[in-house]
Structure formats: C-alpha cells, structure tokens
C-alpha cells in the first residue's frame, strides 16, 4: 500500500514537472480545480461528506459520486480528465485508468499499468484539423451548392406553382370547352338519331312490303301447285295429299282436318285461298322444290371483346417482383393469343341476310352522322385533355406537398434515383419514393421500403430518412431502410449495410444537409491548445 502512495505522489511530481500543466490533482479538469485545494479537507462534489485531502486520489473510493478519485480507478462511477494538449481534451470513465489500454492521446491515463503508450495528440490534432479542414471545404462548397439547390427549388417551386395556377386556369377553360363540346355533341346527336331512326323505319317498312310480295307470290305458286286439276279451285282432296299439314301430327291428314284448315269450305278459289294459306304456309312443302333441310341453328355471331381480366390488373408497381412479372407476361401472352385466334364460330354467309342488309344511309343522314361523330370525337378529345391536365395538376400538387426540407433543398432528389453497387447487390435509392436491392448477377428486385418520413433527431429531423413497408421477411418484419444523410458535394449513396436482418442502413451524402460554414469553422478545442 505504501508503494501506491508513492505512485500517487510520483504522479503529482510528474504533473508538476510538466510546466504546461496547471498544478491540480490527477484527472481533474481546470474547470473543477478550485474544488481540490491542497491541504484543505475535500468535500465530495455531491456534498455527501468531507474527507482529509490526503484521501483524494489515494486509490480508495470515499465519495459516492467518485469525486475523490478523479485520477484512479477506485470509484466505479468516476471520470478522468485528460488534457490531451494538441488535440481535444476528454473525460474517460475512471475504470479506464491503468487498465493497460491507451485511451488518452497524452498517455496520462496509463501512468502505472506498464502499458507503453505514445503521445499521439499532435498527430491526432493534425489529422483532425485536416479532416476538419476538408470537412470545412466540403461544407463550404456543399453549402454553396445547397444555396443553388434552394434557389433552384424555389424557382422550380414557383414555376410549378405558377404552372399549377396556369393549369388550373386552363383547366377551367378546358372544362368550359368540354361542356360546350358536350352541348355541340348532344345537339348534333339529336338530328343524327332522328335521321337514323327515320332511315331504319323506312327500311323496316320496305322490308315488310317485300316480304308481303314474296308471300303472295308463294301463295299463288302454292295455289297452282295444289290446284291439281287446274280448275281454279283447291279442293279438300287436293289439299289432303299434303300430309305435312296434319295439325295433330298423327301422320294422317283427315278430311275433317283439311276442312278445318279450309275454314269449312269444300273448295277455295284464289281469293279465298288467302285465309287457307295463312293456316298452312308455315308447314307447307312445295312439291316442286326438294325439301329444304332443317334450318341450321346459327348462334348469333358472338363479338369477341378482349376479355377484361380482373385478376391480371396491374399490381401496384412496388409489389412487383420479377417472378410476378414473368407470370403476368405469361398471362398476357395467353390473352394475346386469344385475341389473335380466329373466332371459333363463323357465321355462314347467307344470301338472305344480304338481302336484308340495310341499305346505306342517304347522303343527308350520312352527313348528320358524320357531323355527330365529329362532335363526339371533339368532345372525347377535350375530355381526355382535361383528365390529363388533372393528372398533371395532381402530380405537381403531390410533389409540392412533399416536405423537401425547410428551404425545399431536397427538392432536386425528387424523381431521381441513386445507385450503389456492392459485391453482391445493386442498391437503388429513389428519394421520397422507394429503396430497392437487386442481385448483381440476376435475380429479382427486392423492395427495401417505400418513403415513410423524415426521422432524424429532434433538432434536425432532415438528417435521416425512413423507408418502410418493404417486402416482408420470412418469419420477420417487412424490410425497412434508414438513410443517414451527411454533407457532401455530391449526391451519392456511399454505403449500405444490413445491421439487423431486413433492417437496412444507407449512408447518403448530399449538399442539401450542409450547414452554414460559420457553424463548424470554430475549432472545438482552440482555447485548450496552450
């Protein structure tokens, strides 16, 4: 123990010997020197007790707050001050005194451990100054760039706001135009509709007349066919030979049945045959013509619209992994084939239909239709233009709604992407949008998170970006990425890591976070360099 006392004294001797040091107990900072007055009882800094001064730094902990042992490791909660002339002073936990590890660059923490420490303060100071200088340069340039960015952002913002205002104005005009065109369209469609209906009606009438003519001709033909003896009358017996007319379809056409068909008359002439014809024309088979084959049921020609497949609605872009893409492609291929495939049921061309085809519109109607179509097209075009404008306005408004920093200095990153290639992956940061990772040698892209929020410390939330809700992890959370922003001349992703499974960390430099140089130029230890 006496040996230890000696060492402490020796410690004093050393500190006395170095003239730059103001004499004070080992480990005490200048600011607290006045608490340690030699040869006066020492009161623990928490006031808990007072001890003789020779118990200060005697390698035994007397004060609960550790203040009596600033220069030894005796107290579990003490702290030791190293001056570190040439570098920055610091406090270390007193448990690091004489633990065989050099903590203070001025070596003062290892005065009795046998550890061989070199004074590295000058070197550290020089390096730090270099770093600080470099930093200062970067900060300076970065800050200039930032001003430009702010300027540009301001301009851009004004432009965009102006654009939005203009567009809002244009939109109004466009809306009016749409309304006007709608009226024009509706106005043009009315006569078109009427003319078309007229045309249709005329055609229907014409068709009816033709049909009537045909029927009459058929009836006459049937009459002459039925009138076997050509006496100008069709008799019961003459009609009875047409078994197909059997009303109860029992295979025999009785006389009574025939009389029924003939309205009770024994014979009919051409004029009274008309009523008989009405009764039999549906079943009547011409004797001269071979029996018509049963009419083929032709299903109406199904118009094959491309199938709207709800399942293949495009996924929100974010969730697409390549696998899904491929699957979707496959489906698309399938549909394409479907579209290209010829209709499975073809309508046999029928002369009858040709006959029944509506005759072309007359020039007047045609003119009305063309006029209406033009009005429709004009209306739709204007409506589309309105929608597009709406989209544009929305996009700009969305952009304007982002928090691009106090001076909108982060605006320039919007809609940009920055990549970093590591040995395994290509990482891609699209600020305010998403972060992704793609294996370098093929493989699907993984979403590491979509824009969440600024989440830096309270005093400057713009130092950290958080991207959340990325692709889920097996038995784990959804991927997320924290992006730390530091001042730099260039906008670059400098590193990525995955400190915890599925929680990514990106370092990102940008001029946008460079602080005004005045704040950093002041050396933090200037006054300590004696």
């Amino acid at each position: 123990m006496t040996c230890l006392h000696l060492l402490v004294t020796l410690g004093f001797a050393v500190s006395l010997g170095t003239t730059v040091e103001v004499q004070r107990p080992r480990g005490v900072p200048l600011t607290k020197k006045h608490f340690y007055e030699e040869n006066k009882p020492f009161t623990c800094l928490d006031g808990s007790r007072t001890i003789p001064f020779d118990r200060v730094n005697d390698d035994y902990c007397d004060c609960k707050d550790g203040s009596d042992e600033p220069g030894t490791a005796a107290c579990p909660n003490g702290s030791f001050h190293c001056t570190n002339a040439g570098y920055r002073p610091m406090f270390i936990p007193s448990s690091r005194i004489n633990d065989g590890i050099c903590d203070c660059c001025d070596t003062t923490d290892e005065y009795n451990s046998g550890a061989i420490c070199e004074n590295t303060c000058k070197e550290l100071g020089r390096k730090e100054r270099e770093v600080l200088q470099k930093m200062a340069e970067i900060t300076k340039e970065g800050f200039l760039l930032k001003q430009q960015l702010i300027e540009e952002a301001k301009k851009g913002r004004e432009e965009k706001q102006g654009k939005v205002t203009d567009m809002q104005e244009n939109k109004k005009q466009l809306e009016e135009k749409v309304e006007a065109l709608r009226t024009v369209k509706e106005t043009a469609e009315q006569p078109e509709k009427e003319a078309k209906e007229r045309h249709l009606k005329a055609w229907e009438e014409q068709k009816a007349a033709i049909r009537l003519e045909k029927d009459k001709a058929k009836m006459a033909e049937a009459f002459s066919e039925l009138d076997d003896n050509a006496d100008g009358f069709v008799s019961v017996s003459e009609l009875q030979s047409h078994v197909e007319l059997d009303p109860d379809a029992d295979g025999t056409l009785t006389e009574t049945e025939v009389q029924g068909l003939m309205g009770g008359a024994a014979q009919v002439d051409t004029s009274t045959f008309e009523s008989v014809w009405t009764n039999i024309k549906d079943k009547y088979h011409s004797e001269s013509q071979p029996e018509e084959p049963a009419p083929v049921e032709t299903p109406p020609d199904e118009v094959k619209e491309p199938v709207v497949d709800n399942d293949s609605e495009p996924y929100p872009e974010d969730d697409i992994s390549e696998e899904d893409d491929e699957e979707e492609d496959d489906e698309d291929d399938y549909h394409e084939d479907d579209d290209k495939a010829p209709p499975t049921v073809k309508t046999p061309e029928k002369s009858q239909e040709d006959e029944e085809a509506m005759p072309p519109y007359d020039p007047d109607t045609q003119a009305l239709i063309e006029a209406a179509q033009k009005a429709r097209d004009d209306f739709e075009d204007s409506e589309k233009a309105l929608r597009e404008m709406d989209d544009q306005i929305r996009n700009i408004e969305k952009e304007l709604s982002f928090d691009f920093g106090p001076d909108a200095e982060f605006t320039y990153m919007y809609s940009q992407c920055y990549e970093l290639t590591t040995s395994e992956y290509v990482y891609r940061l699209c600020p305010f949008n998403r972060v992704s990772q793609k294996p370098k040698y093929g493989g699907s892209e993984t979403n590491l998170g979509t824009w969440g929020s600024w989440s830096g410390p309270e005093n400057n939330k713009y130092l950290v970006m958080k991207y959340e809700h990325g692709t889920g992890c097996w038995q784990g959370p959804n991927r997320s990425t924290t992006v730390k922003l530091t001042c730099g001349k260039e906008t670059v992703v400098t590193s990525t890591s995955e400190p915890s499974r599925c929680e990514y960390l990106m370092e990102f430099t940008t001029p946008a976070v460079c602080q005004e140089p005045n704040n950093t130029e002041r050396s933090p230890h200037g006054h300590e360099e004696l």
Partner: protein
Amino acid sequence: MAVNSIERMGLLSVFFVCLFFNSAFAVDRGNFKTCDQSAFCKRQRALKPGQSPYRALLETLELSDSRLTLQLINDNNKVHLLLELYRLQGNMTRVKINELKPLKPRFEVPDVLIAEPPTEPLSVLSKDDNGIVLSLGAESQRLIVSARPFRLDIMEGPEVLLSLNSRGLLAFEHLRLRKDTQAQPDGAEVKESVDGDQQQDEGQKDDDGESNKEEDGLWEETFKSHTDTKPNGPTSISLDFSLPGVEHVYGIPEHGDDLKLKTTDGGDPYRLYNLDVFQYELYNPMALYGSIPVMLAHNTQRTMGIFWLNAAETWVDISSNTAGKTVFGKMLDFVQGSSEKPQTDVRWISESGIIDVFIMLGPKPSDVFSQYASLTGTQSFPPLASLGYHQCRWNYNDQEDVKSVDQGFDQHDIPYDFIWLDIEHADGKRYFTWDPHKFSEPKEMLQGLMDKRRKMVAIVDPHIKVDSGYKIHNEITSKDFYVKNKDGRNYEGWCWPGNSGYPDFTNPEMRAWWASMFTYDQYEGSMENLFTWNDMNEPSVFNGPEVTMHKDALHGNWEHRDIHNIYGLYVQMATAEGQIQRSGGVERPFVLTRAFFAGSQRFGAVWTGDNAAEWDHLKISIPMCLSLGLVGVSFCGADVGGFFKNPSTELLVRWYQTGAYQPFFRAHAHLDTPRREPWLFGPENTALIREAIRQRYALLPYWYQLFFQAYRTGTPVMRPLWVDYPKDTATFTIDDEFLIGSDLLVHPVTEEGSRGVTAYLPGAGEVWYDVHTFQKHNGAQNLYIPVTLSSIPVFQRGGSIIPRKDRVRRSSACMENDPYTLYVALSPKKFAEGKLYIDDGHTFNYDRKKEFIHRSLTFANNALTSSNLCPECNFLTSSWIEKVLILGASKPSKVLLKMDGKETPVDFEFDSFMSVLTLRKPGMNAGDDWTLLLQ
C-alpha cells in the same frame, strides 16, 4: 429474408427454409423417434418385470485379487454371458457383462475413462449353492450375487442400497448369424430378440417367420424415408436397477426438463441420443444435443450414482412406487407406518455395445462427484476471460460490424471479453477460412480486439464442404479420414455448406491431424486471441435420419450406431488439443461444444443449444445446467435472450440477470432476429443490463476459484440446493433457484411481470445476507422478496467469505491487477471462511509450475486471517486488499492489521443499522499472510 437467404446460401437454404417451414413454431416431433419407432427400444420395453431367465454359474467363479468373473446363462437360449465385478478405489463397484464368446467383438467405449480405474481387493465372505457374498472393502458393505435367478444386491449393514436385475430385466441380444427363413429351424430367433423375454409365446410366433422379424426390426428398420441396414442384427442390451428408499433421481442430461427426473410409466423413456433438434419443446424426455448416461439417486441418508458407459442410442425408464401417491397418501403411509418403503426402479436400454456400469456409492453428494471425477476427469480449468461475458450473434456481418459492436460496449461502458463469429464468417462455410469480402483482414480485426484486451471465438463445425478447391477437404480425402457409408465410400450428407463429409473423429490419427490445423500457420488469419466453437457435432446431417448420421455408417470397424453419442466429445477433444498445441502447450484452450458425452467436461464449455426467446426457456436454463453440473459438466450456459424469436425487453433483461449468475454467460441470437446488443433498448434497460454484467465481473474471483475447485474435485460450480443441504427434503425438487459454490444462493426472476419471488433459504440455524442490501435473513424459511426490474435476488451464506473485484473494467484482462474487496458474511456464531485463488488467468503454469496463489480466509474469534493453502506454490500478484466488509459484525473499538510481526491500525466505518463493518484500505498484498484483528 427468404429471397436473400436463398441467394446467399444457395440450394442448401432452400432445403433449410423448407425444413424450418415445416415446424415454424415448435419441434416437429415426427422427425424424431419415439421408443415405439426405435425397434430395439420397442422390443426391450415389451419385456415386463418378472423372473429372469439368467442364472449365475457359480462353478465358473474366478477371483483374482480385484476382479471376479462369473458366467451367466440364459436358460431360454443357453447363451453364456461373462460377468465381471470390480471393487474400485473410492467406494465404487464396476459391473461388466458381455457375451462369453461373441461372434465378433462388441464395442467398448474408449477415451471416456481417464485411466483404467484403480481397483481394491475383493474377498469372498461366503459362498453356497444360492450365491456368493463378497466384502466390499471397508464399512459393512457387501455385494451379494444370487445365482437363480441371477441378481446382484449391494448392502450396507442390513440395508439394501441397490439391486441389479431384481426385476429380471437383464436382456442381452447376442450376436448371431442371419439365417434365411427356410434355414431357420424354429422361431427361436423371434423369441431371442429379447433374450430374457418370458412373455412371448414361442409356438405362436413360429409361423410368422420373416415378416415378424421385419416388424421387429431385427435386421433392418426404416424410419421415415431412411433405412437402417443392420448387418449385425439385434445387439441391444438392458439392465434394471432398484433403489430402495430413493424417491429422487437426477441427471442423465440432456433434456429440456425439470431437475428431478420424472417417472416414465405411460410415456416414453428419457432418451439419450445426440440430436440437432430444431426449436425443441420443454418438459418432455426427448433427446437433445448431448448425452451423459449418469444418474444420481438421493435421499436424506445417502447419495449414489449409476454411470452406464455406453455410447449407443440409450433409453432410460424410471418408475417409482410412490410416484402415484398424493401428498396425503404419503402422509397416511407415514402416520400408519406403511410397510412399503419408497423405491425407485430404473432401467437402461442401449442399442449396442456391452453392459459396463459404475456404481458410485457416495455416500455424500461430494463423494459421488469425486467418484465420478476419478473415472472421467474433472471440468477443465478455463481461462479466466472465458468466465466473463460473451457477445454472440448469427452473425456479425463483417469486420466493420465487429468493430462497431466492440466500440458500442465501450461507449456504453459495458464490459465484455469475447465477441463471436458464427458460420457466415467463413468463406462459403469452409471452416478455417474467412469470407474474402467481409473478413478480408482477420488479423487486423483480431489485433484491434487484442488492443482492447479482448478475444474472439470463430465457429469450426465438423462437417466439411465437399469441394476439391478446399484444402481441408482435400487433406481429409487424401488421408482417408472421412467417415464411410455402409458400402465403404465416403459418407456424405447435407449441412450448412451443402454436400459435406464428416471426418472420423473417433480415429486418433484424424484427431491429431485436426489439432494440427489450429496452428497459426495452418489456420490462416488466426491469432492467440482467437478461440473456437464446435457446433453441429451431434453430428447434424440435415438429410439424415433424425437429422443425424446413418447408424450403419462406418468409423473404421465400428458402426456409427456404436459410437454415436461420443462423436461430439471427440470433436471438442481434438479442437481443444489443437488450441493447446498451437501455443506449445502453454495456453489453456477455450472450446464451446453443443454435443457432449461423459467426459466432455475435460475439454471446455457446453451450452444448451438452440433455445427460444420465451420465459419457459429462461426458466429451463436452470434445471438444464443444474443437471449437467451434477454429472461433471460445470461450464454450462444457455443463450442469453433466447436463440430463436425476439425477446421482449423485460425477458431480455431478466435473462441477462439470470445468465450473469450462470457459469457460461453468452448472449446469442438467430440470423433472422433484430439486433439486440445490450444498448438497443433505451437507457434504462441498458443500465439494467450493464448492472447485471458488472455484477458478474465483480464476482469473477469467486467464479474463478470455484472453477479451480471444480477442476480439482469435480464439485459442480452451479448446483442444486440439496447438494449442500442433503438432509433437507424441502430442497430436493427446487430448480428455480440454485447455489453458486456453497456460498451464493441465486433466485433469478424468471416470471413475466413479476412483483416478487419466494426464495427458499436453506439451513436451520443459518443466516443469509442479501448481497445488495446486506439485510440478514434466517435459514430454513421461504422468504418473499418483492422485486423490481432491477432486482436479482442473491444471498450470501452466513459463514462465508467471498472475494470480489468491485472495480469493473472493460474486460477481465483489464482487471488483472485490481485490488480485492472481501465480503465476510458472519454466521450466527461469528465465524466465516472462504478461499482466494489467483494465477495468471490463461496458462497451464498453475498446473505445471505451481504458479498460483491459493489462500484460506478465516474469520474466527474476531480475527480475519489469510493463510497459505499452497506453501510450495509460487506466484506474485500486484493485487491487494482494498476493502473488507464484515456483514453481521458488531462495532470494534479499533482494528489492527498484523503482518510481518508488525501491527498497524486500520480505518473503519460501522453501519449500526445494517451491522456492517467496513475496513478502509488495509492494503496488504493478496498473496501475503496477514491477520486483521477487531478489538
């Protein structure tokens, strides 16, 4: 992470992920056999207690000085067995039973016993047609060999201590030739499947022939898609032990179960078969990563042990005649003086090998520990640093990550000694290599740690990637060191690296070569502060039966079946040997293993494998390590925080508080879990964890001394209360609290949201001091202790002296020269004693050069004295005594330090409220003789 992990791990992880997916939340029991699915267990278990067909042929008795041999015959099949009996020094009896003339040799486990156990003379006291009475040396102990049926009884005076084959369950499936059905004259084969089976109806089985044989799995058995060809046919063995007067049996780790073993009637037996069990379930007898076939039996009168030296798959049945009785029923027995004495019956069944049993007769618990230690050796004395805190994770991603975690500990002023690297550190899981991108400068990294006086552990698993570009694989191939499959080609299986070979660690040449791989020039990038972790050494084979090796794989002449449970021991043995050799035999090794066997304690530390972040897993860490301690393995711990899943902050804090008071103190976490370094849960929780770790470091001198004790005597460091209070029945089933040494009682808080715990303080007439408040409590009481999140209920036994180093630093190495504070806790008779052990902390010089300080500290008659326990020893320390706290003291008028014939006064303070006397800075060197006098 599935996508990425597939990218990273390739095909293997697809398999891995699938494997995991099957059983995302708990063990898939279907992957592991029940007794019914293990043919020999089913056959053996079908045999019920009854008249044994075995008869001792007394006329064949031969007695040399210390060895008795006798033939046994099975009257059913006339097969002769040879019984050997030995009286071993230290109150043990060894019973060996083998076939008299086996078709070929049966496997006898080598390398477990540290030497051929020294014997003592046996003498025949009497002999007649019914049997022989042998004297077991001193005491009044006798061994009675009964001839018809054969049974053994060990007696002391009129008491039977233990009987063998008293229930007639000795069964020895002799080696036989496989005969085809036609050539087989009778159904004897079936009958003989369990040679002692009297229950089977011979005639009925006659006709079944082959098909029945298939069912019995005599010559082949299939589990899931795996077929075990059994070229040797049935080879299993079984023997029963009866323990009259015993209600409590312990040991046979490793199981995720209570300390006191349960009866197995109506369920599966406890299984011993080293297996890589994914997300193991608790409170069942399923096999886990390691096997130590040692059982302890205890009652108020005596502690005994049974060591079943067999490395094949083993099942242990336990039944008890009191198991079914309620407390009331037992009371009734007591009141009415029930004639039925409590008894525990145990039955061991193994798939192959011979019966080789060591009966350790105690009688005290410490006697059993030293008896077992005399057979298999003691806990290796670990380097001091390995008793500190270990920070592990699967995985620290790269050198930068290691550096930043290391710095994190300094920033948050938390001590630690070892940072660990899991499988991702190696280049494509080729052990002994480093990932060229992530760990391109391993020496730089290790030097960085060394500068902080810290260390690293990197994993080296025993599966070797089959890759012609991999040096280790090529050398093993060229030296023909791989395990072979049944066809004689190299056995290959899937593990982390993909297709892998498994070196035959049972081959001493292979082990020597493996050890040589740890030299600094062979293991590139390694340095003296790099140590090793052997995982997956059951061995784990992802696509093997029960996730392990095929039983018909070949280790030289022996089947894997014979050696399975000892494979892991050999891996750790060879690795530890490598570490010793790399330093020229100077430095102590540190190797952690997951698989283990009897004797593994000689090679390093074990941990309880892949546990989970659940409160039950925190609780079970106590009985699991207690069970291991009882059978020699003191250096035990569980993954702090839980390996799988994410612990709540409360659970994590409680786990640190518990782990800080368990021997091996390592935090570990699965790859898929979020980071959980101690400072990631807010300042309050960081402070709680820091405090727990600091308590550990302050107590390192005590831990170190206890490990020295364990190394010398085999006494467990962490132990159940009954070990020190063997007559107090209240302690017999306690496994939510434990002792560290004899002097610290720990009742960690292991319940969520706990507001208080009830700790049992043993010892009528004794006192215990709360180590945080110094409050005194009486022994033999259940004490309710209100707790907050910062509470770790720990008590120091009145009558003990514990040296601490209260100056906690960055690592244990940094504390080397720090002074001690002595905590003297007085007994009601104002007495206390303790020990102090000091050496260099890392070399074998304590052993080879006797370079250590071992001192006895005694407080008696108001004087505290340090005296030398090893005068011939020689070690210098710069540590000194900075403070002495005497708990339960009265105020002296003065205190004098007596040293070198001089007396100097010592300052002191007295807290009359807590009766604590603090001696201020007495200042003597820790290695000196001195006396402090209170006057």
